[in-house]
Each structure stands twice: as structure tokens, then as C-alpha cells.
């Protein structure tokens, strides 16, 4: 499609495919980010000394970036689509897990928390960027803390409690080991946002 003028190409991409106004560009970006989350699950895990061997995966980094780059609606849709593909049986959760089984396991709350998390990250980032347009790193970092950590645990911890019958406070204690890794991932997400090239339309990484 190299021979479309920029104007024609913009029109073609923004043709709405659904009545609620998702254009093809939105649909492809949502699908792409669902795949990015999957691929980040395949990236070799790195073990951090201070988490005592608990594996840290970069999959939640994909969730944070989905909200930051695609915005709240599309970011949450990308995570939802990812979970749908997991439910259909693709082994794309970190460690090659997938299928319906994960929705009955103790981490189910975190999976649904990702959807709310991407929504919260995207919303917070947009609001903060309105307040301080020049501070992308700080805005992305704060948005990732709120949406990518706090909101995800808000769903994940009660999920553990519900599946295992533990008390909320005990479940919270058990999941605290993952917080250092999450803080590291939020720093990475903010670094990506600060470094990602922005083109003149204000969208990220456009092709031309």
C-alpha cells in the first residue's frame, strides 16, 4: 500500500469497522498489543535476587504499555483480547500456561486485574499528560504505579482469597514478593514512554 497519498491512507485507516467507532487502525493495534503481551511472556524470565527465586516475567510490562500507548479503551480491549486467546487454548501466559485452566487457578484475579489495570493506566496517563505535557517519564511512572500495580493487586489479592479461601490480609502478604519486580517493570514502562519516538501527529512510532 505504498502508493496511497498520506491523506488517503489516513482515511482508509480511520474507516470505522464497527458502529462504536473502532477503525481498522484501532483493531490492528489492539490485536498487535495482545500479541506483544504474548511475546513478552516468551521472553526469557530473569530471576532477581531479592525475590528469592520467584520468577519475574515481563508480561505485566505489556499490560502497562498497552494502557500507556493505546489509551484506556483500546488498551483494556487489547488485554481482554489477549485473555480471550488464552481461554481459547493458546499457551501464551508466561511459562507456557494457557487454556481454561488458568481461569480456575489462584492467579485469576490478576488476569482480570490486567484489564482494569490497562484502563486505569491509560486514563491516568492521559490526565497527567494534560497537566504536565513535557513530563512523559513521570506521568508514565505514576500511571503505571496506580494502574499497573495498585489496581492489578486490587483485583488479584481478593482473587487469591476467593480461590484459596485465605483471608485477604494473608493473601496480600503472600503476593507482596512480586511488588519489587512490578516496580522495576513500571520504571521500564516509563523509560519506554520517554524514549519512544513521537511523530508530528502525536502518535507513537508511525511508519512514515
Amino acid at each position: 500500500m505504498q502508493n496511497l497519498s498520506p491523506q488517503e491512507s489516513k482515511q482508509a485507516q480511520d474507516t470505522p469497522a464497527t458502529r462504536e467507532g473502532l477503525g481498522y487502525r484501532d483493531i490492528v493495534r489492539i490485536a498487535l498489543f495482545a500479541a506483544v503481551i504474548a511475546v513478552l511472556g516468551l521472553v526469557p524470565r530473569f530471576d532477581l535476587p531479592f525475590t528469592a527465586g520467584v520468577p519475574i516475567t515481563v508480561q505485566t510490562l505489556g499490560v502497562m504499555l498497552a494502557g500507556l500507548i493505546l489509551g484506556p479503551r483500546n488498551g483494556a480491549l487489547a488485554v481482554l483480547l489477549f485473555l480471550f486467546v488464552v481461554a481459547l487454548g493458546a499457551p501464551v501466559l508466561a511459562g507456557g500456561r494457557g487454556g481454561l485452566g488458568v481461569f480456575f487457578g489462584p492467579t485469576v484475579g490478576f488476569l482480570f486485574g490486567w484489564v482494569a489495570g490497562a484502563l486505569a493506566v491509560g486514563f491516568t496517563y492521559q490526565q497527567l499528560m494534560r497537566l504536565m505535557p513535557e513530563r512523559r517519564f513521570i506521568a508514565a511512572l505514576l500511571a503505571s504505579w496506580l494502574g499497573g500495580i495498585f489496581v492489578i493487586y486490587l483485583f488479584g489479592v481478593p482473587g487469591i482469597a476467593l480461590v484459596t479461601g485465605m483471608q485477604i490480609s494473608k493473601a496480600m502478604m503472600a503476593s507482596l514478593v512480586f511488588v519489587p519486580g512490578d516496580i522495576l517493570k513500571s520504571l521500564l514502562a516509563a523509560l519506554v514512554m520517554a524514549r519512544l519516538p513521537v511523530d508530528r501527529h502525536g502518535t507513537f512510532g508511525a511508519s512514515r
Partner: protein
Amino acid sequence: MISLYISRATWLHKIPAGAKLAGLAVASIMAMQAGNWRALALACAVAISIYLSLRRPGLARLWSLRILVPLVLGIGIFQGLVMSWEAALLSVFRIFLMVILADLVTASTPMQDMMRVVLPLFAPFKLIGLQPKILALCVALVIRFIPVLAAQWAAQSDAWRARSGKRPGFKLIIPFISRALARTDQIAESIAARK
């Protein structure tokens, strides 16, 4: 793409996907209600014997679920220490049962069949303008993108190694995301042009 589906036909494959999913839903409600760990342990034994009845692929599948063991044991020990061993056994068997039952459905149902059962459930979303067709397109795109992006990651980390002689750090995520986003715009144009 690799999938969790067992490609060799077994007796479980002949049961319609809808029936298996309905059975799973009923089993999950019963497991949540169960208050006796012995009943759940018995149900686990039944589930394991279903795996065994699938012969070799079933055994291989059951073996691949061993990654669950440390997590479930960890939860059990933690719970036994802070609550009671009775409660620990209850939740360990409950989690184990539900995960292996759900995995049986995944193992014996092709992705297309699963889609066929699930898509009609999305019909109500037509009212707000989301066509089930669009969902099917999205799923197809994701499944196609995963190997493409994995190859892109590998190529970019090779290039990084060739330039620096070092293993790529997580900085590689920046060019990875940027290149992937550039690609989406071309794909969106192609889809729009074919419509």
C-alpha cells in the same frame, strides 16, 4: 503455532465442545460448594483417571501440568501454617481439580470449535455495535502476529548482539515496540483496502 490442543483424536474429542464447557461450568460450581476435602480428592482421582484413559497423549499432558505443583504446594503450606491444615487440603484439592478439569476441555477441543461455541455468546454485543465477525478477525490477527513478533524480537536481538557484542538488555523493548507499531499502520491500510 504451538497450541495446548492434543491433535490425536481420543474419545473425549468426540464430545461436542458446548457439552464439555457446560460440564466444566457445573463442575466448577460444585467444587466451590464442596466443603469436604475427601470428596474433592476423590474427584481429583476421577479427573486423573480421565487423563489416563486418553493413554499416552493424556499422560504427557498430565506431566506437563507439573509446573503447577510448586505454586499449589506453596499456597497449601502457607495456608496450613496461618489457618488450618483442613482448609489447606480443601483449597489445594479444589484448585488442582478445577485446573486439570479445565485443561481437559482445552486439550480435547480444537480452537475453531471453541470459537464456534463462544461466538454466539457475543451476539448481544451487536446491540452496541460490536460484530462477532470483528472478534473473529481480531483473534486471527493475534494468532498471526505472535510468530511474526517473536521473529522480529529474535532478529532485533541478533542485530543488537552483532553491533555491541553483548546480550541485549531490556532496552530492546523500545525499538521492538516502535517497529511493531509502524507495522500495524501498514496492516491497517491493507485491511481497509481489501474491504
